[in-house]
């Protein structure tokens, strides 16, 4: 995190606006699709940067409610946030595949909340209005 302004998300927004409003139409039409993809990528990066680690911490908390013993281990082994999430999600994925969580309401709730959080960053327009905020 920086105290300098504009910060990362703002820089991305400025660059994105420049690309879309000033550069795109000056390029051959054959390149417009690529520019649109780049703008989209920058939008996702800006949202992800703004969200910070909040989304990951929220997911870890929810997983912790289900695998309380696993998160205790992570506090002791000084895992990074990403490592802890990977470990717990591997465990969850294995349980789901093995049929240990069939129709589990708590897991369903976790999966729904997680995917909505991911879509708020990747493509908030697809979410119902009350979910996208």
């Amino acid at each position, binding site marked *: 995190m920086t105290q300098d302004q504009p910060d990362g998300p703002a820089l991305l927004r400025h660059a994105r606006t420049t690309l879309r409003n000033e550069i795109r139409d000056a390029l051959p039409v054959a390149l417009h699709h690529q520019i649109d993809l780049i703008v989209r990528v920058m939008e996702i990066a800006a949202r992800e940067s703004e969200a910070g680690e909040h989304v990951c911490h929220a997911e870890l908390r929810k997983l912790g409610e289900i695998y309380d013993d696993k998160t205790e281990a992570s506090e002791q082994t000084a895992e990074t946030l990403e490592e802890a999430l990977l470990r717990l999600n591997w465990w969850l*994925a294995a349980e*789901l595949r093995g*049929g240990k*969580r069939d129709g589990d309401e708590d*897991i*369903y709730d976790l999966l729904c909340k997680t*995917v909505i959080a991911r879509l708020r960053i990747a*493509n908030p327009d697809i979410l119902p209005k009350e979910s996208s905020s």
Partner: protein
Amino acid sequence: MILTPSEQRLADAKAELERVLAQRSGARLARITQAVPLTGDATQETWQLKTEFEGGDFAGVEALVLHSDGAAKGTKHHGPSQEFAVLTTVWRAGVRVPEPLWFCDDSTILGKPFYMTRWVDGVASGQQLVANSRIGGGRELLAESLGEELAKIHGITPPQAELAFLEPPPPSPALHMIRTCRVQLDMLGRPQPGLEWGLRWCELHAPAAREIVLVHQDFRSGHYLVDEHGLAGVIGWGTSEWGDPMTDLGWFCAKCWRYGRPQLDAGGIAPRTPFYRGYERASGRKIDAAAVAFWEVMAHLRRAVTALSASSASTDSDQHSLEPVLSSRLCPPEMELEILHCTVPRNWTAP
């Protein structure tokens, strides 16, 4: 003028191509007067070739399409000879497709084998078709026609000598698809709990196939041509295999293929009723609604897994492409949202 590598390859091959076209058509001479690259996915390279024939089967000017493999590798894709064999089989069965003409396995011409079909006028873009209902006349009639053509495809049953390269039909196409998705997920090296939830639901609800037929495997808006009269031809034959006919119905009606028109179940162009009507009338089959619902869930899983696999392949290869990378960020969570919507806990049954 700077040519792309594929444009240069075609320019270098022009004389040889003209020789082959003349030979195959029985013409004295063939002259390619215009070559237009056709957009599509990166696994295919296609060109429209406007060609003047002196004598032979196509005396006059004819628009042809040259089909060959593209630079990218899809998760599953028939080579040109196999795709030509599928196209020839469905053409002979009366399915409305661009007429397959010749397959050429001489790699000295283009650097790779290719096949030729007759050009069919029409709009293929799923987005354009869904956005502009004026294209192709009545949409219910179009949906009915699509159902009829799909029925004809499903009239082709194993064994077929010219399709001997297809994998033998699996005892359970549903379980086979689930296994294939799991293998692909395992190769990615990252856990996907949302997709595992969906695959487990599918495992518990896998329908038994009442019969095994030729399935298109990618029958959707974007894979058929529409002209001012309606359906002009079905395209996109790179992934056909033996399977459950309900697979294609589920893929066509899956929400992920409605191009932003979720209320129009049949490919974003019409309600599913006329599509089903055309299919049932032409096939004599009664559509199994529960099986179609299963295959719609499976469609979303397939799309998510394909997007993740394509991004992984793009990252690993020397050919950088932004589109699959972006798709792997957008597609899987969008598919998971729909999968979760269709697999709420109260819809699970004990095994």
